[in-house]
């Protein structure tokens, strides 16, 4: 086990400056895999690392390996638009995302790693009577679930976002505001969890791809990897876009399809937009990073692809609404666009579930919005793995809901037009 790493603080920073920062330790070790672990987590993204961290910290299970085929945080954790919110309609979702929100609020000090969680407020714009009904319903549900929720008028929207074009093609009727919503630094989340988990004894094994599962008597015994077999009492798969590939190895299918999702950033500019603004109706999601880049989320394409590329038409359909809503951004430039693979379920809610194989658990299907759930997802998944029974918050998100028809349909509720 690693020597107790030094805490991060302004004092340690100043002290290390004297030695030109030669004294810093590795944030996490680079161990070789042991032959057996009590729990193996497949996937070193935010959710997987958070799972390992909570297993070690809260569940007393420190004999844990996180195996990652590339470098940790390299999947959707490093590709998303960093938005955090918990303003979901259904009780099940609100429970899950608000659980995450509360963990976000203490995360930096909990991990001793500044994840730059910034509750700069998040606006959901309503562009029609139907939109107003949708946010009306959602806003009230959020409120009655004990989560912060406010309606604001177009004038209040303008006060928060002075350059917005209220009178755009679909004029803004109002907005739903979650003041506790905001953004966090996505890479820091992965690194912070990795460092903290490592500190508790978790082995983080990078460049280690799972190539198969060892299953006996319908019970998981271990994983085959590019770095050899690793025995495991329990296995949790948290691999986002590639969950179907792993499910196939384990012999079952998932109610998931993997779609390309793109995002883009502008060149960095001085602060111009403070809160996060989302418009589902014309599809414009924007925030400004601390570096000054406008971070803009695109919609997913509707075909299965693992190529991490998407079409330019999607970029056109993303930037169009941004300029319609913020005409002042027309002269700014798109600096970089990129693609990821998102695992999408029919009801746009995740799967946190047991599987047909005993002691094999899956946590996937987060679609376009997994980042915000990272701590909550890892937390309830860790407890579920430890107990062998799903955590009450995770319970409704089982794979079986699709057979029974008990969908948690965030998509249908928001998207149906009339």
């Amino acid at each position, binding site marked *: 086990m690693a020597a107790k790493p030094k805490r*991060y*603080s302004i004092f*340690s*920073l*100043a002290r290390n400056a004297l030695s*030109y*920062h*030669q004294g810093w330790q590795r*944030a996490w070790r680079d161990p070789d895999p042991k032959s057996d672990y009590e729990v193996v987590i497949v996937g070193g993204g935010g959710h997987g690392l958070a799972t390992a961290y909570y297993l070690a910290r809260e569940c007393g299970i420190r004999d844990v390996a996180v195996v990652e085929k590339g470098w940790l945080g390299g999947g959707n954790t*490093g590709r998303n638009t960093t938005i955090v919110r918990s303003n979901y309609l259904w009780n099940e979702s609100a429970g899950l995302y608000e659980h995450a929100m509360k963990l976000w609020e203490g995360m*930096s*000090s909990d991990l001793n*790693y*500044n994840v*730059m969680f*910034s509750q700069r407020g998040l606006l959901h714009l309503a*562009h*029609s*009577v139907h939109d107003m*009904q949708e946010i009306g319903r959602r806003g*009230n*549900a959020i409120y*009655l*679930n004990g989560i912060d929720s406010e309606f604001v008028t177009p004038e209040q929207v303008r006060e928060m976002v002075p*350059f917005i074009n209220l009178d755009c*093609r*679909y004029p803004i009727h109002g907005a739903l505001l979650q003041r506790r919503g905001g953004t966090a630094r996505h890479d*820091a989340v992965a*690194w912070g969890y990795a460092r903290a988990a490592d500190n508790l004894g978790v082995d983080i094994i*990078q460049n280690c791809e799972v190539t198969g599962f060892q299953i006996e008597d319908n019970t998981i015994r271990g994983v085959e990897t590019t770095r050899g077999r690793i025995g495991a009492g329990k296995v949790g798969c948290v691999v986002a876009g590639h969950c179907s590939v792993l499910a196939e190895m384990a012999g079952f299918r998932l109610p998931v399809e993997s779609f390309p999702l793109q995002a883009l950033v502008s*060149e*960095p*500019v*001085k*602060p*111009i937009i403070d809160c996060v603004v989302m418009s589902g109706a*014309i599809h414009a999601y924007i925030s400004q990073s601390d570096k*000054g880049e406008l971070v803009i989320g695109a919609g997913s394409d509707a075909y299965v692809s693992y190529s991490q590329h998407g*079409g*330019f038409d999607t970029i056109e359909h993303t*930037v*169009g609404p941004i*300029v*319609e809503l913020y*005409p*002042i*951004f*027309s*002269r*700014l430039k*798109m*600096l970089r666009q*990129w693609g990821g693979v998102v695992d999408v379920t029919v009801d746009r809610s995740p799967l946190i579930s047991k599987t047909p194989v005993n002691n094999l658990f899956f946590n996937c299907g987060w679609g376009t919005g997994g980042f915000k759930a990272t701590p909550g997802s890892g937390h309830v998944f860790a407890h579920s793995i430890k107990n062998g029974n799903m955590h009450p918050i995770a319970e409704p998100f089982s794979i079986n809901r699709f057979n*029974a028809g008990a*969908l948690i*349909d965030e998509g*249908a509720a928001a998207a*149906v*037009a*009339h």
Partner: protein
Amino acid sequence: MKKQVNRLEHNARLNRRKSIRFWFDNRVYEGYEGDTLASALLANDVHLVGRSFKYHRPRGIYTAGSEEPNALVQLEEKAYTEPNRRATEVELYEGLIAHSQNCWPSRRFDLGAVNSWFSRILPAGFYYKTFMWPASFWMTYEKYIRKAAGLGHSPTEPDPHFYDKTYTHCDVLVIGGGPAGIEAAIAAGQTGCRVILADEKSEFGGMLLSENILINGMPCHDWVDNRIDRLKAMSNVVLLNRTTVTGYYDYNFLVANQRVSEHLGPRISVNSPKERLWKIRTKQVVMATGAIERPLVFADNDRPGIMLASAIRSYINRYSTLPGKNCVILTNNDSAYHAALDIADEGGQVGIIDIRTNPNGAMVESAVSRGIWILANNAITGVGYSRGRLRYIEAMELSDDGLKVVGTKQRMLCDLVGVSGGWNPTVHLFSQSKGKLRFDENHHCFLADQPSPNNPAVLAGSCRATWFPKECMREGHEAGCEAAKCAGFDAFPETDEIKTVQLEYAPQRPLWILPGSHPIGQGRTKHFHELHNDATIGDIQLAVREGYESVEHLKRYTTTGMGTDQGKTSNLNALAALSEIRSLPIPDLGVTTFRPPYTPLTMGSIVGHDCGELFLQIRKTPMHPWHDQAHAVYEDVGDWKRPRYFPLGNETMHAAVQRECRQVRQSGGLLDASTLGKIDLQGRDTRRLLNMLYTNAWDKLQIGRCRYGLMLNEHGMVFDDGVTTRIGEDHYHMTTTTGGAARVMSWIEEWLQTEWPELEVYATSVTEQWAVASLNGPNAAAVLQELTDIPLDEESFPFMSMREGKVAGIPARVFRISFTGELSYEINVPARHGLVLWEQLTETGRKYDICPYGTESMHVLRAEKGFIIVGQDTDGTVTPMDLGMGWLVSRKKQDFLGKRSFDRTDTSRSGRKQLVGLLTENPEFVLPEGAHVVSELKASPPMDMLGHITSSYMSPNVGRSIAMALLKDGFNLKGQTLDVPLMNGTSQRVNVTDPSFLTD
């Protein structure tokens, strides 16, 4: 105005007859047509142009092209302003205004430079380690961090310019108009195929414009002009200068951005597009994208006056500017010797510090023969900088392994340093096309390896490490022939004999990170591998020390390559440093994927004309002009503009809606229902299709009769509803919701084509073919009777039937169906007659006190009768039974879409959410839609929710407020009194009822 002290005698590519005045940081300067802002500033001896991103260090001009990491300026002011423009790309025009960025109060005296003093506690990733205490203070810290970051300023006014967009096809797209690209275009053009040649610069010629060699006996600039003239004479060749190919997508789809008019200045060019986005689908691509010089990294290598050696050549040969008097070239290779020779040719003082132990060969000999001094096996270990200018350099001898310096320090006066670490082929677009790269040990750079099968591109010239003009031209010619052939053009283009200087280079020394007098990362100097984001070799060391050792972690932890230059001059040196620190060869480190765009792409250009009025189509009904005249207030429903209400005078919406609703039931009202989806269904199997699409049975519907139906998805959930009418034996007219029209059409087509191709049904969307006026109310028959020949008596025209005839002289289908519960006729006429029909109906209706009404009243009127609106009272999780409409579900039919799902555990359970009516105890209070009914009222949330209010109105006809709600086990709650807590802390008592409030 000061003289352009660094201007040379020859004209180069400048128009010396046209001098141009421009302003930089409020001082006026002069340049010439053909200058860039950078070349004009250098001609005026301005080296300091801005401050760096993090430490606010003074920065100058580092390159002469789009790879510029340093010289970013705020171009123009007010609405015309643009942040972060590379001075090396901005063409000079009369009256240009630019400001330095990231400095206050001025670039010479910048308070932000305080960061530089604290730079020791601000290494890479410092923010991850601090600002955590107290937790609530992060956002306070963050405010200052945000202010300090961000470079230039966004405009704060709408863009006065417009942008164009065009879509084109060609056989061969040649990217890059240097020697290879020009020859490729000529060769391909000769075969007769459609060629586009695109180059990011204002002029074609590429590196030849920075050269001074002779080709076939003529100066290379003249040679370029000749070749371009030749291309201009080919009608099948399109020449796009000032056009950057920014993105390479699958199946040879490329995006190029043409800067159409900005070189004329923003005020002149408002009448022509600022930029034009080309979306090009080409059969073949020739990449002649050239190469970018690789810097050497040494102590304080970021000072103004230090630039790429090739940039010095460009400023001399293209822009007639020698940016210094006393120059030193620092190099690990032969190519930079040309810069020294050029400087000497122009009479500048120049020497070469060559880090190779024993440089020799033809290039060395020519330098020596010109009296240029060469200091071998030495490195620059420090620079002197003050008051905007470089003053001196210090050099020391390198150890054998190149990791240390030894001996004594020499100080040399010097105001310009040209650095060269060899060349980096520009393979960004190749990588974007999903092509695989490999690291080439000979050339020490990444080269194209395997193209993607979707995008077979040919490369030519220095982008594949072919360095000399003659070979580049030959390769270009061959690539042009090859591409044309692959595109199906088999002619053999003639080869032109090319005579030019034959060059040969000695090997370079594979060393890019030069040691300083202190270990790197220590002492007071900084080794910047990444100028744009202020990332140093010390940062890389720290990252590796802390375990951020994969390339991807490094990139994120140190921000290397994340600037607006996307690391064009820094990525490989970061890899080299990482390779050295980790003792791993570069190929084992991997390379990050290059992402579009190649250079930043203006958002306005991506949008083109698709903004403002053209953002998304606005659909209007044929009656729209009448609504306009009646001062209708519109509602957006999908793409449609529908009248929401028709205010009289200063009437509020509430007043107008109350009046309209009352009037419809008292005398009558007229609704424009043209937006309803309409699908014409014909064919002998149409009835079978309807039986599968709808929950109810369609076998017994007579010709001329109408029937209401609910449509479900396969999950058993309601997704549309409407009335379908049997027009003839095998002919039906289906209506859908306004928003669902396209979805239902696709739904029908899907099933017909994929599952039931044996069914003979022809489905045609006729939404826009019919204009529909819905005439409602007790006087409806009287009004219609005046205008139609159709008998309207109950017997000949009963409820839920359709009759054809003439209305106002127009052939019409009249449906006696009702969404208000009143006597109602939906009059359908060909769309072109819609306005006339409407005018006649309103005119005739006047004496019967008929008013026009909008969607808001429509909603109230239908709610009074308990009629649902799909999408408002349903949400994709609601079955017909949940709506209390189980009577619409046929028990006899074996199957219809969605039926099987009814029997699933969750769908068949009791206690699902069900549609009910709600009446507030206070009849004046209108519940907000979306408010929730709770099982038990508590002082504050959380509270258990039973469900939400889907519709809620003040009903003038019921004489009180009414509402509908979807409540858990709602049918069993009828008769109970429950609470609705509101977000303002108050609550309302409600009685649960049937969702029908107005009984006949």
